[in-house]
């Protein structure tokens, strides 16, 4: 049965992990371990591409490729199978996860060269691929949660790869604990989903004897929740959506749970690229898009998603401006870009969110790997204040990161431009479905546009500090406030080996042309009349649409109801099946196309303005002092420390430990012990060792018994 190939996608990396863990640790041959690790992911990649693009494959048909492996849980009405499903959404996701994952594996072989824990690193990395692919391919919530926890575990293991370093160990712990908060929401969301729909499946699986409706299809006929704050606590679709979003916010590092991601940079750079940029952190976006059917019935939840997304995007971008660690800049940039994706989800542009996930995976993996290459070439120096002028020494790294820089800044034809522009346009034109009013969408657009500008500025700053200007790495006193580190003395940077530069080149190509999978009609129609937005056509059937007319929704914000049924049709509702492109084109009204083109021009101007001002600001003064509050990340860590961690610590120590544990629990035990000792002390008097005393006691006992019989007499 060819469907079993689907399980090969997830089990190949698992096998790779097992081989590396059990065999690789004995062999300790880097070539062997590297081949096993990369080979297993390569198998996944090839199978994923085959299943996606073969005739009748996941991306070419309406029905998902299903693979039922075994019935995992069947308790009463709860039915969760260990079953995989590759539909258009998960298929798209698997393609870039496996492919980018493969490239990062190859890079890591070069990057981790000579590390003592080489086998351990690749075992964990393969295990991560297994968990991530399980997450994406799961056909029900429960199995998805297994993958969800699995990636969390691997993230923990890999952040803490250098476990002998204090900051890595505590960063791993921080990531794990912060994610637990999100998982709490996710689990409650799953429970509530099951409670309401009676199912946890995404797809009806006839092979497994599945019920007629699934957790998602249940909502198809469901009335849209009212757009009120009360709906959050009403226990309906909105409650589910908000709980799921808490999970997504934890995994995808959104306010207020984003704090773990910057610290996670303590892990090796390929880990940052794979887990904390390209794949795992986008799992939250994937989950929301997967559950889009629930979200489009919960406008309040979507509003929250949009607000949090926009706030995170702006917030993280400002912090990214002032970081001096090259990986920290990229980490905040990742948070910011994830904010974009959530913003897109929040305004109902689910396809745009996935589009940005994909392009972001390309260019952010590229930038992270590039930074890894820089760090490698600089002999593990991460502080950009000690770099500068590297383009002469690392031409390939420079050239590839250059494309990544243009891509993330949103320069046309590069991948980031199309996806970011799509999100900006969808935000601008968002209907009032999940927003209080259409003018609110303009506000969100404005925030997103500022973020785009800031993105260009800080990426320019990073590039300038790293590759241009004076060669500060020879000057140990470049950073005055820091002691010159004897290990990081003057070094001569060198270009990385081909194992590292090759993935960079491939990713650079993808960052350049990857955006063409989702060129919006408004832009492609300049050249030809054919709609070439492949991605949108592919994903459209797998993603829910915002209902055009909201039934029975009464806003609490005093917005008159007619404003909900928007004058211009929201773009996501232009449900064009690939067969009916003619009809679909009619939906692109000329005004809309004009507006979209104008906005595209505006976003290009924003990007160029950002690059220009970044260049102007930092070209001559790369060490320009940034505002302290930004450099210290708005003191969020300190605030969390003071408001949450300290009270818990103090409460645990003073209250739970010193009072409850010592007083109550230990107290009860000590009381029991002392009572027994005391009773023993009294009973000891009987054991004097005087035989005659024993005899007297026996006599007394006998007399008491006889007296008792005499007293009770016949009655006995």
């Amino acid at each position, binding site marked *: 049965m060819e469907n079993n190939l689907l399980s090969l996608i997830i089990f190949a990396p698992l096998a790779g992990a097992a081989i590396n863990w059990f065999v690789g640790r004995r062999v300790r041959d880097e070539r062997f371990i590297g081949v096993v690790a990369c080979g297993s992911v390569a198998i996944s990649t090839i199978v994923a591409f085959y299943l996606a693009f073969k005739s009748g494959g996941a991306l070419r048909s309406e029905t998902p490729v299903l693979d039922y492996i075994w019935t995992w849980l069947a308790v009463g009405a709860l039915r969760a199978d260990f079953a995989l499903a590759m539909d258009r959404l998960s298929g798209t996701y698997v393609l870039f996860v496996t492919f980018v994952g493969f490239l990062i594996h190859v890079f890591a072989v070069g990057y981790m060269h000579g590390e003592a824990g080489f086998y351990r690193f690749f075992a964990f990395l393969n295990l991560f691929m297994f968990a991530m692919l399980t997450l994406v391919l799961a056909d029900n919530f429960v199995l998805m949660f297994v993958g969800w926890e699995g990636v969390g575990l691997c993230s923990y293991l890999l952040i803490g790869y250098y476990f002998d370093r204090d900051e890595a160990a505590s960063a791993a712990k921080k990531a794990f604990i912060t994610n637990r908060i999100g998982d709490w929401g996710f689990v409650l969301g799953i429970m509530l989903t099951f409670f309401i729909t009676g199912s946890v499946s995404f797809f009806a699986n006839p092979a497994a004897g599945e019920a007629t409706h699934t957790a998602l299809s249940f909502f198809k006929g469901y009335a849209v929740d009212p757009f009120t704050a009360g709906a959050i606590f009403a226990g309906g679709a909105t409650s589910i959506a908000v709980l799921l979003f808490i999970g997504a916010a934890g995994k995808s590092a959104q306010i207020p749970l984003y704090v773990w991601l910057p610290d996670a940079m303590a892990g090796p750079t390929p880990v940052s690229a794979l887990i904390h940029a390209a794949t795992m952190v986008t799992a939250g976006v994937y989950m929301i898009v997967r559950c889009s059917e629930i979200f489009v019935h919960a406008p309040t939840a979507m509003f929250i998603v949009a607000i949090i997304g926009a706030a995170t995007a702006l917030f993280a971008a400002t912090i990214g401006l002032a970081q001096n660690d090259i990986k920290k800049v990229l980490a905040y940039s990742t948070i910011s870009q994830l904010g974009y994706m959530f913003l897109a989800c929040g305004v109902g542009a689910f396809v745009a969110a996935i589009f940005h996930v994909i392009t972001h995976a390309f260019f952010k993996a590229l930038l992270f790997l590039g930074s890894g290459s820089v760090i490698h070439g600089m002999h593990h120096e991460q502080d950009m204040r000690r770099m500068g002028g590297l383009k002469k020494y690392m031409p390939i790294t420079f050239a590839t990161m250059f494309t990544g820089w243009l891509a993330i800044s949103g320069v046309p034809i590069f991948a980031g431009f199309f996806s970011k522009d799509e999100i900006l346009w969808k935000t601008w034109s968002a209907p009032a479905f999940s927003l209080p009013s259409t003018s609110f969408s303009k506000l969100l657009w404005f925030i997103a546009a500022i973020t785009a500008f800031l993105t260009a500025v800080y990426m320019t700053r990073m590039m300038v500090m790293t590759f241009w200007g004076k060669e500060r790495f020879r000057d140990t006193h470049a950073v005055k406030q820091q002691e010159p580190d004897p290990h990081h003395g003057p070094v001569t940077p060198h270009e990385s080996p081909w194992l590292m530069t090759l993935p960079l080149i491939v990713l650079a190509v993808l960052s350049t042309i990857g955006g063409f999978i989702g060129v919006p009609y408004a832009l492609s129609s300049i050249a030809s009349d054919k709609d070439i937005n492949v991605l949108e056509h592919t994903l459209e059937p797998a993603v829910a649409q915002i209902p055009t007319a909201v039934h029975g929704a009464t806003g609490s914000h005093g917005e008159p109801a007619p404003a909900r049924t928007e004058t211009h049709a929201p773009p996501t509702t232009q449900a064009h099946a690939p067969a009916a492109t003619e009809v679909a084109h009619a939906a692109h009204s000329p005004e809309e196309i004009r507006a979209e083109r104008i906005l595209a021009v505006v976003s290009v101007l924003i990007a160029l303005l950002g690059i220009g001002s970044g260049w102007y600001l930092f070209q001559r003064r790369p060490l320009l002092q940034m505002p302290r509050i930004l450099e210290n990340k708005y003191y969020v860590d300190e605030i969390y420390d003071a408001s949450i961690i300290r009270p818990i610590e103090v409460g645990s120590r003073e209250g739970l430990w010193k009072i409850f544990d010592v007083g109550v629990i230990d107290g009860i035990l000590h009381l029991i012990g002392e009572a027994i000792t005391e009773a023993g002390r009294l009973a000891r008097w009987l054991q*004097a*060792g*005087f*035989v*005659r005393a024993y*005899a*007297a006691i026996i*006599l007394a006992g006998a007399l008491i018994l006889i007296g008792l019989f005499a007293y009770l007499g016949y009655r006995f």
Partner: protein
Amino acid sequence: MKQRACSDTSACATSQSENNEMEPQLSWYLALSAVLFTIGVTGVIIKRNIIAMFMCIELMLNSVNLTFVAFSSFFQDVTGQLFVFIVMTVAAAEAAVGLGIIIAIFRNRESLDVDEASILKL
């Protein structure tokens, strides 16, 4: 009923006292037995000398034997006499072991005062 009543020695003694012949009554034996037993108990409790305590124990055993024999004769039942043999056998064994212990104690402590042997350690 009669048997039950006679389980209490004093009750039997009073019930049979109306019979004024000088033939030995059951109550006489029982009274003697009770006296002997009481002497034995008192001796065990008040004597410090191990040999004396040992003799008192023998006295108690023999008072019980006397009771067995008296009841056996009274009820014309041989079981009581059987028991006496068993008690005597056990008492002999006990005497052998007990005297052995007493000699061991005396050798170790040069004393037969039982209160000085109140701890297991020397």
